[in-house]
Each structure stands twice: as C-alpha cells, then as structure tokens.
C-alpha cells in the first residue's frame, strides 16, 4: 500500500575470525518508504554500521560475508547484482555520508574537483556543467561563497563545512536513499544542530529517504519519524519516535532513554545499563539482553524471544509481552 523503497529481509552478516565465525547481524528486517526517515539506534558494536555497509555492499569481504537474507531496493535484490552494476547504484541511487568529515574527503583534490568528479562518474556532462552544478550543490548545503569554496582543499575547511561538502557530494546525483552513518558524532553541538536541520530541509526539498544511524537518541528525536533499536545484531524494538519516547517497551530501550541526561532533574549520576554488549562469539543462549536486564526471568536465560508485533506499527523482542501479542496501547 505504501511505496516501499528499500526492504531488508532477514539479513545475516558473518565475520570470519581466527576464533570462529561471528554473526554480527542476525536476522535483521526492516523497510524504508519513499521520502521517509528511519533512525537506527544502538550502542557501539550492535551491527548498525555493518547493516548500512551491507546495503551499499561495501562490507570488506573477507572477513565479512553476507550469509543470508535479501536487500530489495526498488524491487531489485542488491545482493544479486554484479560489482559493476553496484557501482552504478552507489552514489546514483543510494549514497552515504560518514562519521568523520575530517578524513572522508580526499586531501589532494579540491572539494570542487571531488564533487564534479563524482557527478561525472555517473552522468555524461561537460566539466564546466559539472562545476556549475557543484557550486549549486554547495550553495544548497549552506556553504558561504560557494564559487570561491569550490577551489578549496579539504584542509582549508572547518569540520562542519567539510561535512556539508560531504553531504553536497552525496546528494549531487539526487539519490533516492541517503544513508547517514553517525553524521554528526564528530561535530560539536551547535554544528550538529545545523547539520541535522540541513538534512531535514534537504529531505523535504529532494523527497529523499534517509536512514540515520546513530547512538544518540537526541539526534533521532530531532530528525526521524520511525526508529529501530538494535542490540547485539538483532532488532529489539521498532516504533514511531513519539511512541518510543513516551513508552519504551523493551528493557534495553528503557535503559537507553534513562541514560539521557535531563536538564530538569536533580540526580547527579546518569543512569547506566550495567554490563557490556556480549561479544559476537559469546552470545548468551537465551535473550541477548538477559544478562544485563533488570527484569530477566528464567525463560529469558533459556530461549530467545521472537520479534512480537504490538500493533500500531510497533514491535518488540521481549518475553515480557508474550501474553499480550496485540497488547499495544
């Protein structure tokens, strides 16, 4: 009924290590509609970035390996495409921005050269046209004096400017899907807000879908509508942002929300989820969160819960809700 742009179905990603095969992403499924923003949250090592790299087929193989599942983009399974066909999709239909604006640009070329280079890799246009398009893109992402800035080298730009240039490059071919992997983590808070505002504006202007990956729930609240929480390679909860903040279902989400500093609270220490994400090679037998879960029961130690649909577009992976399969509010 809705226009599904990207559907990831039961994605399994393994990494071969000397100690054995680690399943880093285990049965992740989600979909992104046209023009929608999906947030993916989770702490370090939960498989967020691996999921996004798998969509782009940029996973270093070996040691990485997509062991199963489908990634359907506009009705086409990306996992079936040849490397050459994939090159045509990257940048043109799906593009990506990265965490480190300091190193995401090639230091030996001006930003103008790099952006027009990227445009000309996909479109047959003259160097001059590409350049004027580049200036337009730089203007759109809010770089002052774009006509001068095109001939700057990355080291002459500040971090925020570089991230803007990076976004300009990623958007230069008007992709249908933008994957932003922690785009604001390396920036300071004021710049962070500007970049998020920019992404929101551009999404509207270009009618583009965004997958925003972050460990910062504040960022998610600001930009996305729907959010997916990942833990140890699996999706543990999926909900609309407002619902999630109002009433988290999964104990892990609860813990995450409780660890956000509150301005109006008098507590001195932040809430901490005890323990660590289990190592991919030593995952517990039952629920992956059980060892750290304050509500863990006997069944949690034994068997892993399934992802339960809770109604209202929500789902959660927890035994707490097994008796209320349709029980969402």
């Amino acid at each position: 009924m809705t226009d599904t742009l990207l559907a990831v179905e039961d994605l399994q990603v393994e990494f071969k290590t000397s100690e054995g095969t680690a399943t880093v992403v285990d049965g992740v499924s989600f979909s992104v509609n046209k023009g929608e923003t999906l947030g993916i949250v989770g702490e370090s090592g939960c498989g967020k970035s691996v999921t996004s790299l798998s969509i782009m087929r940029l996973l270093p193989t070996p040691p990485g390996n997509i062991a199963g599942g489908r990634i359907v983009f506009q009705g086409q399974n990306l996992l079936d495409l040849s490397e050459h066909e994939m090159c045509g999709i990257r940048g043109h239909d799906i593009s990506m921005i990265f965490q480190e604006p300091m190193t995401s640009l090639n230091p030996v070329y001006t930003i103008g050269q790099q952006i027009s280079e990227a445009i000309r890799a996909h479109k047959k246009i003259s160097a001059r046209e590409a350049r004027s398009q580049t200036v337009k893109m730089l203007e759109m992402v809010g770089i002052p004096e774009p006509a001068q800035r095109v001939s700057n080298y990355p080291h002459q730009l500040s971090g925020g400017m570089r991230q803007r240039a990076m976004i300009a490059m990623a958007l230069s071919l008007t992709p249908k899907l933008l994957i932003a992997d922690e785009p604001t983590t390396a920036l300071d808070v004021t710049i962070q807000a500007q970049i998020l505002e920019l992404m929101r504006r551009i999404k509207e202007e270009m009618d583009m879908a965004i997958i925003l990956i972050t460990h910062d729930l504040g960022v998610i609240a600001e930009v996305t509508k729907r959010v997916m929480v990942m833990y140890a390679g699996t999706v543990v909860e999926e909900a609309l942002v407002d619902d999630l903040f109002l009433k988290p279902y999964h104990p892990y989400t609860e813990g995450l929300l409780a660890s956000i500093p509150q301005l109006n609270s008098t507590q001195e220490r932040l809430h901490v989820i005890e323990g660590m994400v289990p190592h991919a090679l030593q995952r517990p037998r039952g629920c992956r969160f059980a060892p750290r879960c304050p509500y863990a029961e006997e069944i949690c130690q034994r068997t892993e819960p399934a992802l339960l649909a809770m109604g209202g577009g929500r789902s959660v992976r927890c035994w707490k809700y097994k008796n209320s399969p349709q029980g969402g509010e």
Partner: protein
Amino acid sequence: MRNLLKDRRAKVCIAFLLLVIVVSLLIDHLSPHDPQTVNGDSRFLPPGKGFLMGTDEFGRDLLGRVFTGAKLTLGISFFSMLLASVLGIALGIVAGYYRGFFEKLIMRLIDITLCFPPIVVAIFVVSFFGSSAAHLICVIGLLYVPRVARVVYSSTLTVREMQHVEASKSMGASNLRIMLINIFPNILAPAVVQFSLGMGHAVLMESGLSFLGLGPAPPAITWGRMVQQSARFMDISYFPVLWPSLLICLTILAFNILGDVLRDSMDPRLKSL
C-alpha cells in the same frame, strides 16, 4: 614542495645537481677538446691552462670526459629509477589495495628478489646478454623495485583505510578509479622520497658495476669505468681517478641529502597546515 626551496641544504644539493646536469648536457659546446681524442704529448697533465682538470694516461681531456661520463651515469641511474618507480608503485598499490592473494604473491616475489646480491645478478645478466646501458638500466631498475614497492605498499595500507576511499566507493567509484584518484596521489610523497634516495643508490651501483667492467663497454664513458682505467696510473697522476670519484661521491651525497630533506618536509608531524 615550496618549503623545499627554503631549506639551505636542499638549495645547495639542487644547485649542485643542476650544475652537473646542465654542464654535462652542454659539454660538447663548452669544452674545446673532444673527450675521446688521444694526444701523446699531453699525457698526465695536472689541472691548468688548456685542460682545466688535467688529462689522463692517453692525454684525453678530463673535464670533457668527466661530464660526458655524467650523462651516461646519471642517465642510466635516472631511467633505472624510473623503471623501478613505475613497477614498484604499480605493484605496491595493487598489493596494498587488493590485499589477499595479490598481496601474498607480490610481496613474496619481492622477498625473493631481495635475496639476490645485486652484483651477482648483474654479472649473470651481463654474461648472458652482454653489457650495455639498457641491460644495466634493467638490472638496477629491477633490483630497486622491491624497495619502492614496499614503501608504496605500506603507505597504501594506510591510505586504503581512510574514509575518503570508502566515501568514493559509496559514490560508485570503481577499483581502478580509486587506485588512481584516491590512492596514487596520496602515496606519491613517499615515492618521491624513494626516487631521490634511489638515485643515490643507482649512481653508486652503476659506478660499481662499471668499475667491475659490467657497464657499457668503451668507448662509452662512465664514472666507474674512468676510475677503473686510471687506477693503475695513480702513482703517476691521481687526477684521472680523483675527479670521477669526487663526482660519484658528491652526487650520491646530494641525492641522499635531498631525499632526507624531502622526507622531513613530508613528515606530517613537522608539517604545518
């Protein structure tokens, strides 16, 4: 690069090397004497009027011979380093970028190449294929490939992990494009340093091989050959040995210092943005 000209050591070295190169290229016009003309009346002359550097055992003009020899010695060194750089950069980038099978194959081949003592390889090649400038270029060039390849390989390993490589991939760049646009310009600096240091080695190796008679055969003039031919008459006049030896020495020194300065100027810890 601009900083290079501010460095006093670099300035002296560049000036010296340019002087040698320019004089050797123009020597036919600058010198009144033909470097090959034998003259029985003017044997073993010390430096003085007429012959600025003196004459050798056949009365030939040493100035002319030293700078004519520079052409061949420097030419062989340059082209062998060019060969080494082209092959070394290509192999190093491929090994470092693709990793896996290519990496193992190329790096092990390089290890094997490093096992051969250069002189033995040179004797082998010359005795099979005859001695000529081209053979010498191939021998010196191929023997230097491993050094360049290793340096380029290790730099490539660093550069390939940089995010701009991944960013380019995410924009749909092919492997070849990434190697040419993202990797090559970023590993060029250490390769240039290797080129300069390598030139010093190549001059030494060329002179050594020529001294052993493995270089281009006479009447071709190289510095090593000059030293070898005149060494027998050192008790009569040491100038025929002194000039080429001095030039070998100074040229190597200049290339090495230049390489060191280049390396320092490219050291990111010393570099100011």
